[in-house]
């Protein structure tokens, strides 16, 4: 086959089969719970029943053979009792103070996993209760101080121009408040790991995760061992959506602590759905307040935005979630004066964490709902108001970033409207709805999403990717970026195959294992294709250069020539290797102190249109049609890219109309799939995905990031459509039928 390969054919842009597709479809792929080791024990976590308190005593109930169990408490920790991430405030196990319900206190292991379950219930804690706080209002009001001096994990202020001067000249001043709720990631495979740990061999962890080097860093501190004694291996991972960004460090540490205490016997911990939902991270709930100054021509004069997110009991990633939410809060608009005050605050609930979009869906929801209100007050249509304020090349974002790419939001809007027949429907529905029990509406949101780490994040990460070629010409890519269902391995192979102009099948991607792949950074922030993919491209090109410089490969070559050159290289010099490290594109500047400058290397730009019906008998809103149009640089793989958009939109529909975390005393009550309602395929409309391509000079083959983008626009587009259908402005998600009923009955 490969002999016939036309080496000039581009693979980027083609829907090649997924690298790991066959193994997944045939069931050959092995997930962590499929793995078993000799002498393996099962581990379980005993958690707090109360949201806040001081532990007085741990009690072991009667009737269980306790001497057969491995028992670990905070006192057994060899290194430091903290999950090293950004700050060091979160313990692996509570030593004394409980700060949230379901906080881990004690670990158990036993060979019989059913007996283990019985034992877990037999451990109880005598706790002196302390007063908890559960809402961001209580936290801001300092009803109790539960973290640091003021309950504030992090604050940012963004300043552009001088917003204080605009209010006097404004023709209109429009205020609004918007809220979003917690959301569960609900990846298919729950969290799970296996660990082997002892003083001689060190610590090895296999597991379902997004970021092997985060786990590595956390275990270093927990065990106080040298780097080479810690090894983290990612196994086949059934989804993450951010939910496996930070939490695997916790569960990996727990399994490793049990194994350490058990003298190195392997310990497996797998959460069931109930534990995964009740104890692990969710999307940060948020509250955004807008105050907007506009002149009579419908031009934005100033925006003052207060953005607050509820971080839960520990700092975890809240500061960076806040950062992304803050930077996206003013959207793709050209506004001369902006002030954004942002805070991440502490409450006594399990820490909220990474979830696709990472703060941006929250602040974009607020903005895109608010602008519909602003348009109404000003007397313009939502579309015309936005048209008068869209950002263009050469203009600046809220952080003062000069947009250097050709941005055409007007064009995107026009095309999205054409695809949905928006204008006609807008008028037709409004006329036809009167007196109907099924009311129809159409709405849209326009937005952007920055790819890669914020500000100088990528510079600090200094990601590295390696590539090696064997005697048979096969190329192995070495990166810590994980395949979690989104297609990393396929994309990397496509990029490398095109860079080397060789057969796609000759490229393989090494299993992420910290003992033999370099740190290419975490698999988050829509950075894997754009940032790491670019490193893959350069590392691959490095192989080619070496072969060409040593005269083994001519300028024009076939896959067979490539093979021959590799064979000769290996014979003469050994394995051929090349590494590439991140360098920021020229002209990128970020001032962390002032929170000004080039927040992201590139943005994807989008307009999403939602059509809804609201059933006045049951107050249920349904999305009937959805168009997602975005400019993404270059589509590397059309099927995977469309899949990302469809999945993200489906998740956004869940976030908007279905998914409600029911809290009681800081604990999720509906931690089952029966009661935490995610939409089924029957609830999701056809999601029509369209791409525009405007190649980005510093992305591989021109690609920008798209993973998080589709989570951003759904909620405001749908609520804008519901307002169109019902005439009622709803400003919070999830918007459930019960809330629709209350408001609709009030206005009726």
């Amino acid at each position, binding site marked *: 086959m490969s002999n016939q390969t036309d080496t000039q054919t581009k693979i980027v842009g083609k829907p090649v089969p997924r690298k790991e597709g066959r193994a997944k479809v045939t069931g050959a792929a092995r997930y962590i719970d499929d793995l078993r080791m000799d002498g393996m024990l099962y581990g379980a976590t005993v958690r707090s029943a109360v949201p806040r308190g001081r532990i007085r005593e741990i009690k072991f109930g009667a009737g269980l053979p306790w001497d057969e169990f491995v028992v670990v408490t905070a006192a057994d920790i060899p290194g430091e009792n903290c999950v090293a991430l950004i700050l060091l405030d979160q313990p692996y196990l509570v030593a004394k103070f409980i700060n949230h319900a379901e906080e881990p206190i004690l670990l158990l292991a036993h060979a019989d996993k*059913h007996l283990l*379950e019985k034992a877990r219930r037999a451990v109880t804690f005598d706790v002196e209760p302390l007063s908890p706080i559960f809402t961001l209002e209580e936290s801001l009001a300092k009803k109790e101080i539960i973290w640091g001096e003021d309950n504030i994990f992090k604050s940012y202020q963004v300043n552009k121009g001088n917003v204080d001067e605009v209010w006097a000249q404004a023709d209109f001043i429009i205020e609004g408040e918007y809220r979003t709720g917690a959301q569960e990631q609900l990846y298919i495979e729950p969290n799970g790991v296996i660990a082997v740990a002892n003083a001689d061999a060190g610590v090895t962890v296999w597991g379902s995760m997004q970021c092997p080097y985060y786990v590595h860093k956390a275990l270093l501190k927990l065990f106080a061992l040298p780097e080479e004694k810690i090894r983290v291996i990612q196994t086949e991972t059934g989804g993450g959506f951010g939910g496996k960004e930070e939490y695997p460090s916790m569960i990996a540490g727990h399994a490793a602590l049990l194994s350490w205490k058990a003298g190195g016997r392997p310990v497996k911990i797998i959460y069931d759905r109930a534990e995964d939902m009740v104890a692990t991270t969710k999307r940060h709930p948020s509250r955004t307040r807008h105050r907007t100054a506009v002149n009579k021509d419908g031009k934005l004069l100033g925006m003052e935005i207060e953005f607050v997110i509820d971080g839960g009991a520990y700092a975890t990633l809240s500061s960076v979630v806040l950062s992304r939410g803050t930077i996206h809060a003013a959207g793709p608009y050209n506004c001369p004066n902006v002030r954004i005050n942002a805070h991440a605050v502490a409450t006594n609930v399990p820490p909220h964490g990474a979830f696709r979009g990472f703060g941006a869906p929250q602040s974009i929801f607020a903005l895109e709902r608010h602008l519909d209100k602003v348009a109404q007050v000003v007397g313009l249509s939502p579309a015309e108001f936005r048209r008068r304020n869209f950002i263009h090349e050469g203009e600046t974002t809220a952080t003062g970033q000069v947009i250097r790419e050709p941005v055409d939001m007007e064009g995107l809007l026009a095309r999205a409207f054409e695809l949905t027949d928006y204008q006609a429907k807008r008028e037709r529905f409004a006329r036809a709805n009167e007196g109907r029990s099924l009311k129809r509406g159409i709405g849209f949101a326009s937005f952007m999403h920055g790819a890669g780490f914020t500000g100088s994040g990528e510079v600090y990460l200094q990601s590295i990717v390696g590539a090696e070629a064997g005697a048979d010409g096969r190329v192995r890519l070495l990166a810590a970026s994980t395949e979690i269902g989104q297609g990393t391995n396929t994309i990397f192979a496509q990029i490398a195959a095109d860079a080397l102009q060789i057969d796609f099948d000759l490229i393989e991607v090494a299993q992420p294992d910290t003992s033999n792949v370099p740190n290419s950074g975490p698999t988050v922030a829509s950075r894997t294709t754009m940032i790491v993919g670019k490193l893959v491209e350069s590392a691959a090109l490095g192989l080619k250069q070496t072969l060409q410089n040593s005269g083994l490969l001519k300028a024009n070559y076939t896959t067979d020539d490539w093979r021959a050159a590799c064979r000769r290289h290996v014979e003469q010099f050994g394995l051929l290797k090349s590494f590439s490290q991140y360098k920021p594109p020229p002209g990128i500047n970020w001032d962390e102190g002032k929170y000004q400058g080039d927040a992201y290397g590139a943005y994807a730009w989008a307009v999403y249109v939602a059509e809804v019906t609201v059933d006045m008998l*049951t107050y249920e809103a349904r999305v009937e049609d959805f168009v997602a149009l975005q400019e993404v640089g270059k589509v590397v793989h059309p099927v995977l890219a469309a899949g990302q958009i469809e999945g993200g939109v489906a998740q956004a529909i869940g976030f908007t109309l279905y998914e409600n975390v029911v809290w009681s005393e800081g604990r999720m009550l509906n931690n*089952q799939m029966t*009661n935490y309602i995610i939409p*089924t395929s*029957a609830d999701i409309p056809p999601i029509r995905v369209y791409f525009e391509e405007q190649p980005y000079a510093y992305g591989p083959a021109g690609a920008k990031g798209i993973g998080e983008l589709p989570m951003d626009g759904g909620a405001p587009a749908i609520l804008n459509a519901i307002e169109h259908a019902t005439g009622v402005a709803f400003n919070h998600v999830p918007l459930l*039928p019960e809330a629709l009923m209350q408001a609709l009955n009030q206005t009726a």
Partner: protein
Amino acid sequence: MRAYLPDYELRAPRSLTDALALLAREPGGWRAFAGGTDLMVLLEAGLLTHRKFLSIWHLPELKGIEVANDHVTLGALTTYTEVQRDETMRREFPLLGAAARETGGIAIQNRGTLGGNIVNASPAADSPPALLVYDAELELVSTRGTRLLPYREFHTGYKQMNMQSDELLTRIRLPRTTGDLKTYYRKVGTRKAQAISKVCFAAGARMNDGRIADVRLALGSVAPTVVRCTQTEELLRNQTIDEATTKAAREMLMTEITPIDDMRSTADYRLNVAANLLADFLRQLKHT
């Protein structure tokens, strides 16, 4: 799995006689295990407190749909899939087919049984409202004998039933007198599939000369048990359908049902939706 399996016992008696003998020997000791679609959820969550079960899945006496002249008899083990496939059921008892179609997914429809749905006694179960509209009767059997009970008298309170611990539900009988009812079924569960009802509404009626000659209203998820709303039926009987009747019926229904706030919804929502669905039913009835 949060249950400790060695704590549980499961037996599979060879015949109905053996099963009944076992139940009689240790009253309260053993409980039926049919499709297991309710029981396995509890087991998995570690919430199944009862420990001794007898599998009835293979007992032929509890299977099959039989059509006689004046009634149809459904074995307690009849699955949702069987209900949907049966020609007579489709023609004469469409409410039950509608309920079956909207119950769980295909796997649950293949495995879950009508008997289990009834005896599990959830007020949110989806086939009971249909059974109530059709005036179903239950056949309960023990070593002491067989008795026939109107389904309407079966549920006596939240998870309380008119059934002895030595009895099995063997059959469900539906009188073949309702084929000409105008029917209405609506399950409201926020999502379109795999939902637990917030409100389940099943109704049937006959019009005669512009007046309501016969009307049956049954609801799920609005009271401690599924309910037939006889007071509202009473109010509607012999009435013409107009705005005043509809308004009065809505008001009566809202006093007749007693929904609560829970994890899934609010009492207020359930009241309003139930009343809206009643109005919608009456509107459709009027226009047929």
